[in-house]
């Protein structure tokens, strides 16, 4: 049995049992490294989709045996062109479950534990139990959340970071033929939030164009989605658009064609309609394979020191030749998430609370979604505005129109902001403009 195990892992063992000039300074070649890795190292894979399937396979075949995978989605037909652990018969089942099943069956040494959950369902104790986290997510909000979670696990003693509390995060993303992979050491290197302004939010078409001066087929589709549907409620009162329901899409498609014909616009097709309504991002097996592999290589390096890790951000594009560029993304000195620098809210006494909230949601720096604000006034916590529960929201709503002065927010007062983009609250200090 031992001979078989040894023979099975002979390829990876060459990297772990032999010295070399490009290994990490901490590396010690040893026949025990692989065994130790298999007995002790727990890796968390977030996402079991295009990147997640590839990640699980890659990690299992690099020798990792203790894998955990989280995904809140179920399998859809359109996944099958790249999410290769799934078959037609699996449609409707949770991705994490089916992925784990497949890997466990194909690679005997490996044991994958699955969770059909959102990442927000777990607490810090759960995340603290992992040595490495690798993400194959399709949402920036989720990335920011896990980034915030790992940052919240950091321990500082006398202002010094306890390195054993650092859980490396390897993050990958793809879109068509483009992709990127990065290595994040929370507290030490650039984090997700440090580079937030590299990802400006989606730009939607201006409403006046959609309503009055359509020119492109996309404008016609958006007109139906944003204006006609709420007006006509074609299926039942208040029913939201379900981009996966062919009846909904057909209705939108036909109405968009009519609108386009009115203005002499060509190009409204069913595929375009679906793409606009669902905000579809094109995807293909090869890019996911490449980026996941790059991420897995980094996880392997971090776990074994067999080689120095990527430093620290790589972009990939194979639409014209094969292009990669790797550079050291710098930590942002005043990063909202990972710097210890207190955040300042520069406001005038006459600014309304809704103006402050607008800064938090609209600025490239913060890009929050639905921030809830509480202030520390005279030693007591005062809720300024919260989105839920509905009863509280209603009670606090008048505050939105009140001014900084009216709310008693003096210079130096701390405001705690909670938002889906982070598991911890962000503290701001009010600074009044003269």
């Amino acid at each position: 049995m031992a001979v078989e195990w040894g023979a099975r892992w002979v390829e990876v063992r060459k990297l772990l049992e032999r010295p070399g000039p490009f290994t990490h300074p901490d590396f010690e070649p040893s026949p025990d490294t692989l065994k130790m890795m298999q007995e002790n190292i727990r890796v968390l894979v977030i996402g079991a989709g295009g990147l997640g399937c590839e990640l699980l396979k890659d990690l299992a075949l690099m020798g990792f045996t203790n894998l955990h995978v989280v995904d809140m989605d179920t399998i859809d037909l359109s996944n099958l062109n790249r999410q290769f652990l799934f078959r037609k018969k699996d449609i409707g089942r949770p991705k994490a479950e089916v992925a784990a099943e497949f890997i466990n069956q194909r690679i005997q040494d490996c044991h994958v534990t699955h969770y059909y959950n959102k990442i927000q369902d777990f607490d810090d104790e759960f995340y603290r139990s992992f040595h490495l986290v690798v993400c194959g997510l399709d949402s920036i909000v989720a990335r920011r959340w896990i980034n915030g979670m790992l940052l919240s696990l950091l321990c500082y003693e006398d202002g010094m970071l306890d390195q054993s509390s650092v859980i490396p995060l390897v993050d990958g993303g793809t879109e068509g033929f483009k992709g990127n992979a990065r290595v994040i050491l929370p507290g030490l290197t650039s984090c997700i939030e440090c580079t937030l302004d590299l990802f400006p939010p989606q730009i939607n078409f201006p409403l006046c164009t959609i309503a009055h001066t359509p020119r492109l087929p996309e404008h016609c589709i958006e007109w139906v989605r944003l204006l006609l549907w709420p007006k006509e409620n074609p299926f039942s009162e208040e029913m939201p658009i379900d981009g996966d329901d062919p009846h909904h899409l057909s209705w939108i498609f036909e109405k968009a064609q009519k609108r386009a014909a009115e203005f002499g616009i060509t190009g409204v097709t069913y595929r375009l309609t679906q793409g606009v309504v669902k905000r579809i991002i094109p995807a293909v097996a090869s890019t996911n394979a490449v980026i996941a592999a790059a991420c897995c290589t980094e996880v392997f390096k971090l776990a074994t020191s067999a080689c120095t890790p990527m430093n620290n951000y790589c972009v990939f594009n194979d639409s014209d030749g094969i292009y990669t560029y790797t550079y050291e993304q710098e930590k942002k000195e005043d990063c909202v998430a990972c710097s210890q620098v207190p955040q300042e809210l520069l406001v005038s006494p006459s600014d309304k609370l809704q103006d402050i909230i607008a800064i938090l949601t609209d600025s490239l720096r913060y890009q929050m979604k639905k921030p809830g604000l509480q202030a520390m006034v005279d030693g007591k916590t005062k809720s300024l505005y919260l989105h839920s529960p509905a009863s509280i929201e209603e009670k606090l709503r008048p505050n939105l129109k009140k001014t900084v002065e009216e709310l008693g927010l003096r210079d130096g007062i701390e405001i705690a902001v909670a938002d889906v983009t982070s598991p911890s609250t962000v503290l701001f200090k009010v600074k009044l403009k003269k």
Partner: protein
Amino acid sequence: MLRVHHSMESAAPASCEQTEKAKKYDRQLRLWGDHGQSLLEIGHVCLINASATGTETLKSLVLPGLGAVTIIDDAKVAHQDTGNNFFVDLASIGRPRGEVALRLLLELNPEVRGTFVDQPLQEILDNQPEFFTPFTCVIATCLPESTLLTLSKVLWDAKIPLVVVRSYGMIGYIRIQIEEHTVIESHPDNEIPDLRLDRPFSALEKYMDSLDLDAMDDKEHSHVPYVVILYKFLQKWNQEHGAPPKNYKEKKLFIQLVKTGMREKESGENEENFDEAVKAVNTSLLPTSIPSGVQTLLNEAANITPSPTTKPFWIMARALHEFVSSEGRGVLPVRGTIPDMTADSEKYIKIQSLYRDQAAQDADWVLRRVQEHSQQLGPRKVMPSLENDVKNFCKNAHALRVIKGKPIVEEYKGSINLSEIGAHLENPESDLVWYVMLRAVDQFHSEFRAYPGYFQDQVETDIVRLKVCVNRLLADWGCGPIVKDDFIHEMCRYGASEVHSVAAYIGGCAAQEVIKIITAQYVPINNTHIYNAIAATSGTFML
């Protein structure tokens, strides 16, 4: 992200219910369209050696719906395969590796057909080289140098594209051997719009002359497409200066001139269309010209003598060249598409249709010339799609690409670009050194019948032997012994190991290169790509 419309759908009437296949492939159809998918589905790829790298390459071809695969592999599944290859399992140890891998790969997509051949490649090369004729592309991995060179020659002579892919320790390698590959739909990431402001065609001129900005009310004024604004102010400028703005200084002055035409909105904000006009000054005032790559292509087309065997691409290129020399007056056909512009629907659509009509007219001239050539060549297959093909060709004229390759056998016989090699080897950031190392380990293998460091107890002695191979190779190329010992030591450390994550990376890249070749969309590398997983870097070289 909202994507602006590209025509990626077939002409067939769109039924509101997509077929199951269209649903499954939806995400990739948005990249290469139904026509690209059709080509993929009639493609037949041959993989030589179902190692980890081989199966990882094939995986990303089977999933998107490649028509058929054939695997040539005479190995049996061994224990070490179960530690790096996803397409074998413990139960199949001892069975023919090609058979097992084929079965587990085809499981990924029931629409793909496949066969396996449990025979040594050398036998097929020696006895039935015509075996390769039906293939659209051949992928080869884990071949010793001598066999690779024989394969290279057979496929070059048969004009079948060959993609060599390897993973060796932390290094990945791809080499594409293809005599000539033409791309009409290259999908460039950044395109400069074709607005023709320096030479507006008569219909465009007439329409824009008919518009009087000063006479418009504020609403209409703020909804004039920016191309009209630029046209009007260019006229003013030309009257004063005699020629369009040429340099940075003049463009700045031109922008100031444009701004004089701005009216203040009630809200105090600028008119968006004028803002767009200012932003567009840098690109829109460039004289209409033919990109140098396309010009080279046209020059080549000018010199060919069309014959019944001339590829349609070159017939169209020839016709394009003739158009450029006459009706085109030195430039390509009007592209026909324009970027979105803040404007009222009527004016935008009117202008858009003017560009579209002119593009159709220009394409018509090219079509006539293509038909002339076709007639002169005697009875030829009548292509029902000819008109659409020519239209598509003209629309993409500015982005046409041609790749001309070299056979591997030539590369190995020493006709490498020596000046390039030396420069790269002196550059510590370049990954070309790994190419030298791969060549050296192959030489080592030819000599000693094993790869350096394959056996644990030979790592140290093999370092010395490998160094001899490296320096001999460098001497053949006229270089001194400039490769540092570190690289030689590292290659021996690897001992020809094939680790999964590196195989998966390079396999994914190679698969996409094959898809580019089969669909003739997007641009393949020319001709060597090295992936360095140590530093997470890569480089492409023409060798």
